[in-house]
Every structure is written in structure tokens, then in C-alpha cells.
């Protein structure tokens, strides 16, 4: 039981990494990156957990009662917000790739090639 969170984090990271490596679609790629990132949330929150302790908010229970580590929670918080913004940036890049290359398959992309005219639809 005491090692379960670490295995969950490792499994999430492995699943995300496998998706990243085998991805054939840029939007899928961004999703896989998000899965990888959620592994870091599990790991960080697991690192700060204290057996039998409450939340690090001393509103209902007085300061001094056992509480979990607030530092890792703060890190996860900013991680989530910045991660969401970075995902948006990556998706914006995906939109540009689709517009210029008319594909979202990373394998079909070749560097340093002038952009093609739009195919007839």
C-alpha cells in the first residue's frame, strides 16, 4: 500500500511516454504530454502526504494540528495552471501546422520544405 502512489505515478508517466513515442497526431501528442504531466502531480502530492494529517489550511482546526506538506501542493497548483497555458500554446502550434502543411501527423512533416498550396477540396 505504501508504494502504490509511486507505481501510479510511474504507470501514468509510462503510458504518457508510450503515447508520445507512438503518436501519429499532434493533438494526441499534446494529450499524451498532459498525461505525463499528471504523473508529476501524483508524485509531488504523494511526496508531501503525511499519515493521519489534515489539509494545510488552519481555518477549522487550529495551527499546530498535523498537516500535509503545503510546499508540494503549491508547486502542483502552479504546475497545473502553467501546464494548461503551455498546452494551449502547443495546440496553437498544431493549428499552424495544419494550416501550412495540411497534416497533423508528425511523421509526415519534413523540415525545411516550402509550404505547399492548399489541396483542392
Amino acid at each position, binding site marked *: *500500500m*505504501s*508504494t*502504490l*502512489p*509511486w507505481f501510479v505515478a*510511474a504507470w501514468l508517466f509510462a503510458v504518457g*511516454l508510450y503515447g508520445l*513515442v*507512438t503518436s*501519429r497526431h499532434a493533438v494526441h501528442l499534446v494529450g499524451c504530454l498532459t498525461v505525463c504531466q499528471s504523473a508529476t502531480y501524483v508524485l509531488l502530492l*504523494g*511526496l*508531501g*502526504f*503525511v*499519515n493521519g494529517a489534515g*489539509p*494545510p*489550511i*488552519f*481555518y477549522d482546526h487550529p*495551527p*499546530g494540528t498535523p*498537516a*500535509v*506538506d*503545503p*510546499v*508540494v*501542493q*503549491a508547486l502542483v*497548483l*502552479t504546475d*497545473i*495552471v*502553467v501546464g*494548461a*497555458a*503551455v498546452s*494551449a*500554446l502547443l*495546440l*496553437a*502550434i498544431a*493549428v*499552424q501546422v495544419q*494550416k501550412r502543411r495540411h497534416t497533423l501527423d508528425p*511523421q509526415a512533416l519534413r523540415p525545411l520544405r516550402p509550404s505547399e498550396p492548399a489541396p483542392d477540396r
Partner: protein
Amino acid sequence: MSVRLRLVLLGLALLALAPAVIHVALALPGFGTPTSPYGQTVNVLLPDLRHVTNMVAAVNFDVRGIDTLGEECMLLCAVTGATVLLRGARGEGEREKAGHVPGRPVTPRADATVLACRIAASLTLLVGISVALHGMTTPGGGFQGGVIAASSLLLLYLGEGYAVWRSLVRGPVLALLEGGGALLYGLAAFVPLTLGRPALQNILPFGTLKDLYSGGLMIVVNAAVALSVTGSFGLLLLEFMEETRVPSDESVPDEEGR
């Protein structure tokens, strides 16, 4: 690069990293018995030192305030990058009317949808502001509150349709919120410097524990983050929403009378 080749490369990289990963994994403390004294020190000291009850906010906005300034800049850069990328291809011109594919029927929204979305959007905005304002006392803060407030914009779009939504939500206002929030954070870091103190030093009176005014300078920083996050996520919504409108001259206005 084929998938097989990529998997082989991944395998090689994992082999190279394996000794370090195994070393770190074996050194992890047991779950529930952390060894880092940092967090517990914060829990013991901060309620007295800063008169706040939410330790997560205290870490974010005071103890590691400079870190959060960095995060704030990352957020600003990511959103600016996304906006520049999307606008770069589309142009600055904004379309007040939604595009419409000829031949596709326009289904008006049910009144119940409009009403439900208006109520839900107002409530969501209120919850967002409340969560942001009470960041120093109860769970919440600028990051969470800002995201909740920005998501109310999406509900507004769901209920009102594109044209009305665009007349309500102005890009420059959101950009001002985003940049203004970051500027406010920068000022909160800079003003103590002009007084000969360290950057971001908490120079305001701390207020009383469990009060809406508690934490001193943390309140300013919290508000700056709330503004910035609201502006950032609102701007991202707006830019991606614009992207769904194909800028072609043949498109006719959608959703007449709404």
C-alpha cells in the same frame, strides 16, 4: 522516423537512464512519512508570521513569491505565444459575426438553454471571484479563482451565441487584465526594492487571522494572479474561438436576431 525506430530510441534512452531512475526510486521516502522538513516548518511558522490560514497560498505568494513571479511570466509568455501564433495567420481583423456553412440549417437555442447558461455563468463568475478573494483563509486563491472566472465566459458563449458573446467579451479588456495582473505582480516585487528592502518583502500590515484582509502584500499578489489568470484563459478562449470562424467572404451571418 517510423514508430518502430522511435520505440527503439526510447528503449535505448530508458536503458541509459535506468540506473539513475532506479537509484532515485529506491531513495524515495515511504508514502505518508515525508522526510523534508521544509513544509512542516512552513506549517508551524507561517500562521504566526503572516497571519494567514491557507498555507498553500502563503507558500505561493510569500515564501516562494519569486518562484510564482517566474510562473506568472511563463503564463504570460505561453499565452502571448499562442495569441501571436493564432493571430499571425488570421490577421488582426476581428469578425463580429460567426461564419456559416451554406446549406447547413441554423438551429436557434432553446430559451431554457439561454436562461440556464446566464444563471450558471453569473454564479460561476461569483464563485470564481469568491474563491480568489478568500485565497488567504480557505482553499483557493488567484490561480483557481481566475480559472473558474474565465470558464464562466465559456458558459456565456454556450448560452448567447457567438455574436452576442463577442460584443460582451472584448479582446483588449482581457489583454489588459492579463498584462495588468503581471504588471501588478511586478510592482509588488519592485516597490519594496525602492524602499531599500528585499524584493517582494511583505511591507503591508498583516491584518488579522481568518479575516478577508490577512496576509498583507499577499493580497495584492493574489489579486494580481487572479486578474492575470482570468485574462490569460479568457484570451485563449477568445483566440481559439476566433479560429473556428473560417474567414471567407461567402459566409453569411449566423444566428440572426441573437
